[in-house]
């Protein structure tokens, strides 16, 4: 009953094509193996990507899971994520936006990215700052 269990199901299916086939034939037989809440099962059955994202499924698993494992048509996935303008996290799973040029990054970072990062410490959360 957690993002962990939903993600574990997607991960297991990614490593076992038979499980994907079984899910196609009989979704409940796969869903019942995992400790999922009724809300989570409903979201999976309904391809509710936003619910699952907000639950905390990692974008890397969510994008491949919805389309490759759980049978969400590509077009529907694109539509669901294109409408996520109010939710930048979900949007970045499919559209990271224009890449920054290497020269721009170098100009910002200088020769030592960690030095650069430490000057930005005040902009970081306490947890992030503790890692610098």
């Amino acid at each position, binding site marked *: 009953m957690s993002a962990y269990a939903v993600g574990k199901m997607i*991960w297991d299916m990614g490593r076992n*094509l038979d499980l994907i086939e079984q899910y196609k034939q009989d979704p409940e037989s796969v869903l019942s193996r995992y400790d999922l809440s009724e809300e989570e099962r409903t979201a999976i059955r309904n391809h509710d990507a936003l619910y699952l994202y907000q639950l905390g499924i*990692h974008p*890397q698993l969510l994008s*491949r899971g919805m389309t490759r494992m759980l049978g969400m048509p590509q077009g529907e996935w694109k539509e669901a994520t294109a409408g996520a303008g109010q939710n930048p996290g979900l949007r970045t799973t499919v559209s990271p936006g224009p890449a920054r040029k290497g020269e721009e990054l170098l100009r910002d970072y200088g020769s030592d990215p960690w030095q650069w990062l430490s000057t930005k410490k005040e902009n970081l959360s306490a947890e992030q700052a503790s890692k610098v």
Partner: protein
Amino acid sequence: MGELAVAAATSHAPGIAGSIEAAGDRGQRFHAGLTKIRETFDDAQPDVIIELSNEHFVNFYLHNMPAICVGTGMSFIGPVEPGVANPEAFLKIPQSRVEGHPSLAKDIVRGAYAGGVDVAYSEDLVLDHGFMVPLHFITPNLDVPVVPIFVNNLIERCPCPSASINSAKSCVRS
């Protein structure tokens, strides 16, 4: 102790192999860079490649997420992509068995331990596009053994910079 023959870094996005035409001129420029790396490798004739890439939830999930994992196996199958029945169709890279280098890999693990970093190791790993895209273009015949090193930069907690640096030092020492 070996000699560091050449060091290089490149992107590994699946489209570099699977759909480069979509990138137009930029794709061609990118491949010109890859060709330079390949020529440098050809000139240097390395005995073994130590290849670092990031984990994509292909080998690991949250029941066991190593910060750094060294591939100590005899060989590794790649490319393997989660939920993709035919990765060759996706990446235009034939699936094959990439030879490993267990003795160097184990030396790297020992060196990391000695340097204060408890890296993980595994003989049972598959290589996804993160490893196979660069290999495919730099050593197309896959005729140089590879020690794959997986780094978690996917999900918190990622290894701190000092662990990465100390692991790299152990590679250089080994």
